[in-house]
């Protein structure tokens, strides 16, 4: 690969470790670099522009490539191309760009391309409020492209998580050969907080599994291992493989006429995530063990929710927080378990009701109270506290 200048990396680490102070967008970019990302294709869009700007400055320093494509559609296509040429690649956008990328996100899913897509969510729909936060794209991340598939999406709620979860996103992408979404929001993206960046050799990095047959032998590029993920050959290694967005068989050739091929492929793409769900899903709990009221919140809303839960405990209310770190696959079992123990679940979201639907589905008979918030201000802890306190 021509894009890593090994001599530069030997003399200094790519990402300076230690206690640093930065914004969420920059932490995300640094996390990507720490994970081994060496290709960024994107288009400026508020509030994700800083990620592009930071990558434009940092990637040439380490022999990586930043290209500002003519639009988000081209950006996503270039990301897939770079990944298929063997380089870890990413893009960053917000709502309007996310919509444009959807078709090619489908291509990445269908061709099992490891890559990371960051959506720093803002007020929508359409052009909406570019400089204001929102959590309105979480369902779109799951269902936005046509066809049937499963995805992985992570929701950072701090600048530290912008770093850590971006690294995790790359690792998940490489493990499952899938585009992974980092669903941040404008506040988490633009706020400045302290970040502890670990030493490079203590950061866990995962790389895509490679084929075991040598090149120039018969090789089926989409034949899965036991974990349902095929080892990945890349261009230039001598495997002469073909990949297409058409329904294909294990050889990679189009099988547009076969119901069996469609069934096998689409079900495997779904099962790849479903069967490995336990290894992928992550939640963070606070004071949940003996809770009588639970709050389920993610992203920026979780910051206020944690504060509310602490305040509630101080007044004697047994409240607890379940914070999904992976929004998709949704932590249904975890929510279901909690729902059996609590009187009600409060869900604050910066939208008109998206993840709350998943909570209701998992919680079954347990009452769910939804707290919407739109516009520039995230939920105030007292707003959540009132809802928690109001539960009998």
């Amino acid at each position, binding site marked *: 690969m021509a894009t890593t200048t090994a001599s530069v990396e030997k003399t200094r680490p790519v990402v300076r470790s230690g206690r640093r102070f930065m914004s969420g967008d920059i932490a995300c970019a640094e996390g990507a670099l720490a994970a081994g990302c060496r290709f960024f294709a994107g288009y400026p869009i508020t509030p994700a522009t800083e990620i592009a700007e930071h990558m434009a400055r940092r990637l040439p320093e380490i022999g990586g490539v930043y290209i500002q494509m003519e639009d988000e559609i081209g950006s996503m296509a270039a990301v897939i191309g770079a990944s298929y*040429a063997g380089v870890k690649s990413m893009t960053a956008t917000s709502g309007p760009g996310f919509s444009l990328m959807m078709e090619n996100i489908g291509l990445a899913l269908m061709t099992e391309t490891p890559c990371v897509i960051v959506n720093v969510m803002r007020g929508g729909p359409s052009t909406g409020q570019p400089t204001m936060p929102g959590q309105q794209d979480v369902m779109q991340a799951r269902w936005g492209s046509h066809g049937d598939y499963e995805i992985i999406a992570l929701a950072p709620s701090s600048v530290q998580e912008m770093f850590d979860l971006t690294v995790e996103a790359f690792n998940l992408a490489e493990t499952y050969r899938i585009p992974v979404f980092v669903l941040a929001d404008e506040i988490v993206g633009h706020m400045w907080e302290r970040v502890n960046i670990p030493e490079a050799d203590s950061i866990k990095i995962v790389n895509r599994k490679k084929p075991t047959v040598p090149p120039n032998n018969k090789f089926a590029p989409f034949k899965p291992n036991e974990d349902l993920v095929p080892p990945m050959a890349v261009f230039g290694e001598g495997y002469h493989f073909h990949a297409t967005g058409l329904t294909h068989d294990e050889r990679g050739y189009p099988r547009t006429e076969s119901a069996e091929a469609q069934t096998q492929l689409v079900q495997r793409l779904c099962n790849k995530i479903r069967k490995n769900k336990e290894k992928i899903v992550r939640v963070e709990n606070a004071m949940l063990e003996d809770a009588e009221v639970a709050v389920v919140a993610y992203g920026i809303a979780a910051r206020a929710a944690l504060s509310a839960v602490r305040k509630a405990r101080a007044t004697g209310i047994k409240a607890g927080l379940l914070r999904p770190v992976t929004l998709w696959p949704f932590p249904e079992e975890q929510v279901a378990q909690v729902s059996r123990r609590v009187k009600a679940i409060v869900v604050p979201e910066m939208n008109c009701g998206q993840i709350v639907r998943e909570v209701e589905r998992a919680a079954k008979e347990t009452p769910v109270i939804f707290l919407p918030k739109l516009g520039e201000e995230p939920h105030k802890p007292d707003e959540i506290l009132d809802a928690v306190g109001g539960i009998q």
Partner: protein
Amino acid sequence: MTEEIPHPYEKFLRKDRIPHIWCEGCGNGIILNCFARALDELNIDLNNVVVVSGIGCIGRVSGYTNTDSFHTTHGRPIAFATGVKLANPELKVVVISGDGDLFAIGGNHFIHAARRNQDITVICANNFIYGMTGGQYGPTTPLNTWTTTTPYGNIEQAFNLVHLATACGAVYVARWTTLHTRWLTESIKKALQKEGFSFIEVISQCPEIFGRYNKMETAIKMMQWFKEASEVQHFSDPAKAEITPHRITVGEFIDIEKPSYGRLLKEMQARVAEKK
């Protein structure tokens, strides 16, 4: 007249995918043939060739070449190819796609890749129609043509692709018909070896659909039109090379030197690394 010797270009084809799906007399087969011949005459290491195609009949070509290949979403092979080439500049990246894929839905990616002078070769199979979906008009369909979505005759002007490519900054621009097999092969060879963005427009016959709609029902009739109408003129003004029923100007139009995106990127990376 024996059949024991295999075809000399077998090694460029995926044997398990031949015969290809294209109709009898389809120009796509000739383009594949000329491409294989170009690879053969250049003796290129096939391990380094990546063929990228979009959606359309010609889009299936990537499934037939015995190279690493990728079949993208409609209109996006050039953007995909950009990512490939930048990630691994050692690869020879060739985009082979159709007039609609490259210039309707994909138009934006074409003009910017040409502007940036990306190191890729783009071969456009221009058959004046959207064949795969049954014969709708496209940006190169001539005025007044009957197609399924211009049942009263096309009222749109057609692109002059060599003019467009030149205006966008391509460093090598050529147009040939599928009848000009030798010239086309030489142009492909030149384009593959040239630094920067190379564009070859191939006037290709779609006898089954375009031909049938336009009184050229057989492949031979379409080839005869190419023979009668084409005129080889090297380095003529691309702006004056629009295609009419009576004249198809073929030849090389542009062959200039300009630093490619890849070269400038490498220089920039070296400068930046030195400063640090």
